[in-house]
């Protein structure tokens, strides 16, 4: 009865991508955690389960899980499997800065051709961020 529930992982990988498959799994899980689709404490699929779901080598999934655990995104609980870790400073400052920059360049590239005035865009971004903000207790 104490067996914690595992969450299904809404993840897809693509062959032919320059990113190796274990990289795609690592990035995909991080994205799901960052977006809140995978909540803190949620159980990850087993290595063989996820390997079968994605039709990839279990060794590749194991490698990706190891990396996510080492980086602090997942916690291993002996005998129970892997769980989404409580957030802490998961990345170095330089790495955060690099990723923010990458994301901004991509984002601006997508929206620049839509021809909205800057103040409208900034308002929309602020509104989206407000939706992601942790809810204040009480």
């Amino acid at each position, binding site marked *: 009865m104490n067996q914690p529930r595992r969450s299904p992982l809404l993840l897809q990988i693509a062959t032919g991508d320059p990113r190796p498959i274990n990289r795609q799994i690592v990035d995909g899980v991080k994205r799901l955690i960052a977006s809140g689709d995978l909540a803190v404490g949620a159980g990850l699929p087993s290595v063989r389960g996820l390997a079968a779901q994605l039709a990839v080598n279990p*060794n590749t999934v194991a490698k990706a899980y190891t990396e996510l655990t080492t980086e602090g995104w997942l916690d291993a609980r002996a005998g129970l499997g892997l769980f989404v870790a409580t957030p802490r400073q998961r990345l170095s400052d330089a790495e955060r800065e690099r990723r923010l920059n990458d994301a901004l360049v991509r984002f601006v590239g997508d929206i620049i051709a839509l021809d909205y005035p800057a103040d409208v865009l900034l308002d929309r971004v602020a509104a989206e961020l407000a939706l992601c903000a942790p809810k204040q207790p009480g």
Partner: protein
Amino acid sequence: MNLPLPVATGDFVIETDALTLRFRNKLALDRLTLNVARGGIHAVVGANGAGKSSLFRVLLGFQAATGGTARVLGCDSERLTPALRSRIGFVNEEHALPPWMRVDELTALQRRQYGAWSEERYDAVLRNFHVLPAQRIAELSRGERAGVNLALALAQGPELLILDEPTLGLDVVAKRVFLTALMDSSYADGTTILYCSHQMDEIERVADQLILLERGQLLHAGAPDDFCARMCLWIADGELRTGDLANLPGVLQIEHLDGFTHVVVVDQGEQFEVRLRALGAHTIEHMSIGLDRAVNAMLARNHAGSAVPPPVLQPA
């Protein structure tokens, strides 16, 4: 005569040293030196005639080498004892099984031959292919025959399983079931799997190690990711002259597309930009490439019509 006892050296299930197989006027294996570590899935890739099947035939003791040595599970492949043979599984290309036999008859025959036979493993594999015991082999589809073939091979609990193009001609459903069973055996039972395929998307999903053969020689042995990491696609403005590019080190493939020159390069690093600039390029970009493109560039480099001479490569 004093025969040396088989001794496994290192943790390699296969060790070849300058292995050579010469037919009348063709060199099928050309001084091939290859070590295959225990565990994991090792995919052999190469053009038709690169030596994949020849290598398998020598390893299995079906064919005597004309030079060099091949050791399998620590023993010379030409002197494999029945005890060693029973630890090596083989799945042939055509999934050829006696067509007149019923599945259960064939199973009974094989069960008697192998001491390490596991009914549980056999059922676990075969269950996924929805084959009935009373069916005749001749009534089975290619995918179902592949399933029976794999179940028979894995039920023996082989330490090493060799498969010659096992997924050729399988439909998408059978192929996925087949590969999942293969990967499961490697992961759960620690079976070392050596197999060949021409399908790069499949190899990307399945292989721990990539063994790239060309004209009987080894081009690369290592993780597929490491192979891709050696490659880079450079895109320069203008139509740089093929002759100039072909003289640069590491150039594998040159294409002129929409006024740009695309060059796939191996083992060069960032300073390759300087070389492109020296040829007159102004705007230069580069990106990493996936396995399919990487293997393509490597194997296409000296096909007829390619202006690129084969670069000298150190097997990694």
